[in-house]
């Protein structure tokens, strides 16, 4: 099957690591994809706050582009790795199905600019694609450096499973856990999997956002996780880059590696760290390297 890859704005900047590691993993697994040509911003959460119909047009343009660029394929599968993009594209599709009047307006507007929207594209999360299309069994076959001894706390964030749970359980999702297990890691059972990290507020009301991130990092640490695996550029950024601020605000000295699940999977698939964007993290995940070498943890 051929996929169309929709990066979204974040994966080109703060979430660059996500893109690098995801694409490396897909290359190693021989997953066929091409980037959506001339994609535009999905509108994210902010657009909806200003003008809803424009927000739907914005998102629908990408779906229509995908339909156009995949018109010779039996199915149109769009991989949207960013949780916000994933949710917004899904929401747009569902909303337009439920509201024919809005759909007509959006379809008409797109037609004006030469695009045809039918809604036949399927919006897919990379977790869904890896577990349900590719399959854990196939992945396990390709694991060369199992993450033995590494305790991973899978963190899905909000919008991967909310409000729509298209490929996983809404309250206790498990796809990422299954992937991490396939990669040889030990997964941590915790109840923070889908708790909000406050990402959309870090830029604006840091006082509110910081405690939200803190309880997650704190709980991961408490459950003796070595790494938090994320599937959202904002979550990763928030949980990784604000650790210093958390420590100063809450007078603590937590330190935990926060990676994309694709990075962890990439390590297990034997991909070199640079191709997984490890060098772009604030500090490289030394703990993991040590454990994999069979050494002791650098920080606890």
């Amino acid at each position, binding site marked *: 099957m051929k996929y169309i890859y929709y990066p979204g704005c974040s994966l080109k900047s*703060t979430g660059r690591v996500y893109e690098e590691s995801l694409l490396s993993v897909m290359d190693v697994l021989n997953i066929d994809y091409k980037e959506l040509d001339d994609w*535009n911003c999905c509108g994210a959460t902010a657009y909806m706050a200003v003008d809803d119909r424009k927000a739907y047009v914005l998102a629908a343009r990408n779906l229509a582009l995908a339909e156009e660029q995949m018109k010779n394929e039996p199915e149109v599968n769009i991989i949207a790795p960013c949780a916000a993009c994933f949710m917004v594209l899904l929401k747009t599709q569902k909303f337009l199905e439920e509201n024919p009047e809005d759909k007509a307006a959006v379809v008409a507007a797109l037609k004006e600019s030469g695009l045809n929207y039918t809604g036949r594209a399927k919006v897919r999360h990379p977790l869904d694609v890896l577990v349900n299309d590719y399959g854990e069994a196939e992945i396990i076959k390709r694991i060369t450096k199992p993450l033995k001894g590494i305790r991973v706390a899978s963190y899905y964030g909000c919008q991967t499973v909310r409000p729509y749970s298209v490929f996983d359980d809404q309250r206790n999702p498990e796809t990422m856990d299954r992937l991490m297990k396939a990669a040889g890691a030990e997964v941590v059972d915790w109840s923070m999997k889908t708790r909000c990290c406050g990402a959309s507020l870090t830029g604006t009301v840091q006082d509110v956002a910081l405690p939200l991130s803190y309880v997650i990092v704190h709980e991961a640490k408490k459950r003796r996780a070595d790494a938090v695996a994320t599937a959202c550029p904002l979550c990763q950024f928030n949980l990784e880059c604000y650790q210093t601020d958390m420590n100063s605000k809450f*007078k603590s000295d937590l330190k935990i590696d926060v990676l994309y699940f694709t990075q962890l999977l990439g390590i297990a698939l034997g991909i070199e760290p640079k191709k997984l964007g490890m060098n772009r993290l604030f500090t490289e995940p030394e703990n993991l390297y040590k454990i994999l070498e069979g050494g002791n943890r650098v920080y606890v």
Partner: protein
Amino acid sequence: MERSIYAESFALDVTAKDRLDTRRKIKYESELDKTFSNRIAESAHGEQLFGCIQCGTCSAACPVSHYMDYTPRKIIQMVREGFKEEVLKSSTVWLCASCYACTVECPKGIKITDVMYALKREAISGNYYPKNAPASILANNFFKQVLNNGRNSEGPLLMKMYLKTNPFMLLKNMMLGIKLFTRGRISMKTEKIRDKKALKKLLNSVESKKKILSAGKPADVKEAAV
């Protein structure tokens, strides 16, 4: 685990007010906007909000409700009853992180997050939002940036927002910015799609479904004795 993890800031802020708050806390029917609830319900595609049983699940599920001036449950009731001024000026709307926990947990199927969006739209179009509230500024700038370029460039966007709202924050976040910059995770370049004009035309071709009317000032009400 060390004790220090239980940070003080989780405790409730019950600092005593330095003077007695004697603002009136009564609402007259003439001060309410009777059409507000229908407007919001329509804009949010959320007729269900009239079925709210005030159980508070939304507030309890919300990760930020303890910072809000009105909990989401209260907002729903206030919308239903037409407390337009209070709702649109509340912090609740701008603290909502769009995590959808309330929507998922609501036993009556109310799309609370979408109600919050509808309120954000109403607040922005009716000029109700606090002028220096970063969330609304961010939304507005984001909107314009995407309208013009088709993509969002995080660097310039945040820069602009901090300049507009709180330049001090810019300084505070400078170190973070530099760290990101050196790791290639942020740039000051503006991202664009190929045909910006066509996109702008496309976006401008759709009119917002409901021109949200900012209703006039409430009728003259005599200040009630307290």
